[in-house]
């Protein structure tokens, strides 16, 4: 273990650049693995969280709407039980219409499908206005003991309505007629309009044919818009799927031109779908902040890494340069020492030879001096003789001159 460590240490002491590179690769791998494991998974969790919150709102809305429908169906069922035994059918129905504002019209059908009584909030019916429903599902389904909910239809005032019909039982198992009521979705509109989804989200309801039947913007409902072209709506209404809105193909542009994210839930009984939509910019604001902060952190780390890398590389280069200089210096020092040594030795040797030479030269000089002294002595004698001779010559010259200058 220690030997491996030592080898490792030795290797990287020798090659610090590789150590830095290896360190950076390791940290880089750690960052990448962090990004692809923890960070991406966390982002995925946040996505799921956003979808869960929206789905919860959708679920609550669905429960409320189902509650409204159930409550009204129950009230209508209670009315059906009273009607069978009461002779005062008209008064009871009118009172029911007063108490239950969601119902706009109620009809009582006999066991042959004929309307025998009809009361409305807006219209007056005479006996000649009553119709036969023998072949209609409004009559057939309740006669089989079941509750019938029609598809949503619109009145001439573009108000969405629903027909609910159920059996009137004279005794258990004995169906004596059918109670059919026209139910306005007004209360459902109000429920949908009251639900808040973030700052800019909204809830809407689509019927089994894909038509918008409740929306905070009533105008859209009154325009009888079909929304099946929206993938999310198609999945909920046609495929009966729960839409979490996490797929790109489920995003769409809403009536305001905003790109929205939506979740949707199907209704089992009616085939309707409830949707929660929110502009993408708002729905994913937290998600995006976290993702962007993550990306910025990674970017900052990479930047710091690069700065560190370049700094270390410069340091290593400098260190390596210094090392080389040191080696060169050491090598120069050795060479110099050798040279100095050789020179010293040479000088020593030279010094030693010089003494002898000095002696020799001194001797030689002494001899020369001796010779010179001798020579000098000789030279000086000769000089003196020369001077004496010169003087004699001069004396003779003068006498000669004098002799020449005399007349003969």
């Amino acid at each position, binding site marked *: 273990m220690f030997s491996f460590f030592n080898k490792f240490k030795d290797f990287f002491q020798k090659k610090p650049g590789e150590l830095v590179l290896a360190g950076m690769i390791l940290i880089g791998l750690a960052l990448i693995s962090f990004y692809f494991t923890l960070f991406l998974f966390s982002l995925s969790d946040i996505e799921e969280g956003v979808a869960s919150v929206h789905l919860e709102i959708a679920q609550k809305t669905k429960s409320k709407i189902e509650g409204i429908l159930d409550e009204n169906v129950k009230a209508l069922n209670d009315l059906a039980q009273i009607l069978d035994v009461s002779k005062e059918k008209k008064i009871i129905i009118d009172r029911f219409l007063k108490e239950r504002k969601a119902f706009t019209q109620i009809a009582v059908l006999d066991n042959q499908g004929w309307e025998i009584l009809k009361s409305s909030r807006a219209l007056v019916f005479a006996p000649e206005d009553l119709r036969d429903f023998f072949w209609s599902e409004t009559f057939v389904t309740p006669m089989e003991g079941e509750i019938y909910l029609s598809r949503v239809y619109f009145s*001439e005032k573009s108000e969405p309505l629903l027909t609910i019909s159920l059996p009137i039982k004279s005794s258990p198992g004995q169906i004596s007629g059918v109670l059919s009521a026209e139910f306005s979705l007004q209360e459902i509109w109000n429920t949908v309009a009251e639900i808040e989804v973030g700052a800019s989200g909204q809830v809407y309801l689509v019927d089994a044919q894909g038509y918008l039947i409740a929306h905070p913007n009533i105008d859209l409902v009154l325009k009888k818009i079909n929304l099946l072209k929206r993938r999310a709506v198609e999945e909920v209404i046609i495929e009966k799927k729960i839409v979490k809105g996490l797929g790109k193909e489920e995003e769409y542009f809403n009536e305001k031109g905003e790109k929205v994210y939506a979740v949707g839930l199907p209704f089992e009984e009616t085939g309707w779908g409830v949707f929660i939509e929110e502009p993408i910019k708002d729905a994913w604001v937290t998600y995006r902040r976290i993702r962007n902060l993550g*990306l910025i952190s990674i970017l900052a780390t990479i930047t710091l890494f690069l700065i560190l890398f370049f700094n270390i590389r410069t340091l290593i280069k400098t260190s390596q340069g210094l090392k080389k200089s040191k080696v060169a210096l050491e090598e120069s020092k050795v060479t110099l020492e050798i040279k100095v040594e050789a020179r010293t030795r040479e000088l020593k040797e030279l010094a030693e030879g010089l003494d002898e030479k000095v002696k020799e030269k001194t001797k030689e000089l002494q001899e020369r001096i001796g010779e010179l002294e001798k020579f000098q002595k000789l030279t000086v004698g000769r000089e003196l003789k020369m001077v004496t001779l010169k003087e004699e010559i001069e004396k003779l010259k003068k006498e000669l001159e004098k002799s020449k200058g005399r007349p003969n």
Partner: protein
Amino acid sequence: MDKKIVIPIIILVLVGLGIFSWLYRGALFPEKLKEEKAYKVAVVLLGGAYQEAVDGMVDEFENLGYIGGENIFYYIKDTQGDQGAIIPATQELLQENPDLFYTVSTPVTTRVWKAVGTEMPIVFNIVGDPIGAGFAKSFSSSGTNLTGCSNLSAGLSGKRLEIFKEAFPLLKKVVTFYDPTNEFSQLSIVNTREAAPKLGIEVAEVHVATIDDLNKALAALKLGQYDGIYLTPDAMVISKVELVVERAKELGLPVMGHEESLAEKGVTITYGANFYKLGVQAAPIVYKVLKGEKPQNIPIQGPRELDTVINLRVARESGLTISPQILGKADRVIE
């Protein structure tokens, strides 16, 4: 450090900062709050009960943060039942360069539309039958420069007669007053005529073109001649309902109306949409038009509630007995 390294690093940092500031541009550079212009709304009405539809709209606008005289200006012309004054009033209002006209009742809407043409947006209210009156092709899309709220009173004419009969089962013959030149009154009376035989009631129609005509017609009523007075939702008659109420009291006759505020003014029984609530309901439509939406893209809305209101005090004063069944059905009883 080497320049060759420093420059890319600086660029990288700047790019990073650029990305950051782009991502958080909303937080760094919040959008300047847009200064909204002060809107101008021209209002034309015949007065009387129709004022409720104006009050509802104005109150709802206050709830939306638009205060009259501050960020919204209302130019209101109340012709007090005078239909001849509608067009001059509209022309006067056009001088103010309004953003839209808010018209209350069918005759007002008809005349204002005629005066302003097909460009100026009009939001109407208390129009009994917008399709029958030619204001719209359908409720979902008018196809014109008009939209608004309908009280559906034309369609409810028969039902009102039925409720009148339920309240006073001995009712056999009733009288009604309306202006035959009022298109809406004509639509409404058709529904009344259809329902009357089904209910075993005879309806006497008295044409009144002016308030003076109405006064005369009321004065001509004799004790025992009719069992009740049925109010056709004629704008002129409704704007002077107090004249009808006074004469009915003198003769001990019940009066049937189409709106709650009429019951407050002494009409014995009313069935229909509440004008004030319809005013509140119209406010978002007015708002959308002010914000630039085309009227033809905004569906016409009907009333969300239809209320039965009984003025029991007046009934007692007139010596009338209202059937307990109808009292049980009443949404409001004024005592």
